[in-house]
């Protein structure tokens, strides 16, 4: 059992885990990070998330919160005064929720198909993936962050995927920057923040992990 009030069950390459690391860092919340081996899940993980058995799980005073966007909102509600990620206006909050939902509906699966598939399926995935990023780039517009002047909810939800860009580009043989230069600019701005810098693994490390994963899954 942990002595710390907050425990995060996580897996280092997971973009879903990264967004929680960012939020906890932004809010200066002390927590214990527990690395899970997804091929050998701990009893704590299985007990904390019996329905999905997935990471990340945020455990606060012994009670588990599953699903990263839900845990993100939980952290916002329990620690509302420290670096809020969601705006206070309900309409702006609805827009943030809409885009966070869009990002999760599209990017994980499309991104995965850019590295896990070949031929026509891969080409289709690459195109759809870029189309989604372009839509996000249009939503960003001229703002420094999706949250406006400050790093916010949508920024925290999206930036973890940046650590996977090198993997997508190398496996899929395409350039994200060529199609979405503003988004890359935005990503680099986010990476200047301490909370983001320490929460994202290096892109090459993620690529190495995916190569190993492809071997394991017989996709090489």
């Amino acid at each position, binding site marked *: 059992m942990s002595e710390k009030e907050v425990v995060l069950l996580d897996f280092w390459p997971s973009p879903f885990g990264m967004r929680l690391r960012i939020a906890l860092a932004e809010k200066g919340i002390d927590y214990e990070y527990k690395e899970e081996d997804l091929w050998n899940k701990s009893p704590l993980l299985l007990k904390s998330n*019996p*329905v999905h058995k997935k990471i990340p799980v945020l455990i*606060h005073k012994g*009670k588990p*919160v*599953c*699903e990263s*966007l*839900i*845990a993100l*909102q*939980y952290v916002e*509600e*329990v620690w509302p005064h420290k670096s809020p990620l969601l705006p206070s206006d*309900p*309409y702006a*909050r*609805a*827009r943030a*929720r*809409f885009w966070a*939902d*869009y990002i999760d509906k599209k990017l994980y699966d499309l991104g995965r198909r850019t590295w896990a598939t070949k031929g026509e399926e891969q080409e289709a995935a690459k195109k759809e993936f870029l189309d989604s990023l372009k*839509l996000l780039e249009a939503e960003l517009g001229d703002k420094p962050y999706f949250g406006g002047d400050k790093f916010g909810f949508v920024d925290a939800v999206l930036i973890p995927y940046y650590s996977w860009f090198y993997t997508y580009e190398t496996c899929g043989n395409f350039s994200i920057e060529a199609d979405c230069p503003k988004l890359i600019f935005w990503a680099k701005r986010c990476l200047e923040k301490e909370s983001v810098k320490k929460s994202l693994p290096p892109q090459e490390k993620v690529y190495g992990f995916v190569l190993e994963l492809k071997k394991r899954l017989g996709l090489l």
Partner: protein
Amino acid sequence: METVKLYGAWPSPFSYRVIWALKLKGIPFEYIEEDLSSKSPQLLQYNPVYEKVPVLVHGGRPICESMVILEYLDEKWPQQPLLPSDPYKRAEARFWVKFGEDRGPSVWMIYRTEGEKQEKARRDALEMLTILEEHGLNGKKKFFGGDNINIVDIAFGGIAHWMGVIEEITGVKLIEDNKFPLLKAWMHNFKEVSFINENLPNREKMVAFFRARRSMILSSA
């Protein structure tokens, strides 16, 4: 007060989620019926990303995605709350809402397919219902929200009214007689609530509509 408009479509359970929330909170609104085979320019302008219903337009500003709309309604009109006030209980409620969003499509896949694909969809749907029965409703009172309906009940409203229609049209039975006692009780309790009962699409109309549409879907597959 700024006007509230809801763009919806009568066969859509997602549209009804918003109708139920508006009725529960006593929010006056104008309802605009969309013909999904011929979408209005307004709808396409208000929801360029998905081009879908429901869309809520409040004071001229659109909000898309039914569960995003519900959270917005709860924040602007806090009476008859959809979400509990305690952060942990809110997280639990949101967990079940997301579960429904992720797994609910399996029921629609039964409707849209046949053969092996339909069989797989049936297994997925049964798994979802089993988890709901054993983890979601276990220890609960009349509703997911306790004594009163909350956001989770509304999110699963499709199961209460649309699933039976899909079972009838496809002949694929999901809620078999003595299985899922908690779910059956919940479905009954949910439809007994007056503002739900008074706001459900006509069942015969649904059967006719969905039956015809299924033929079209299967013939073009």
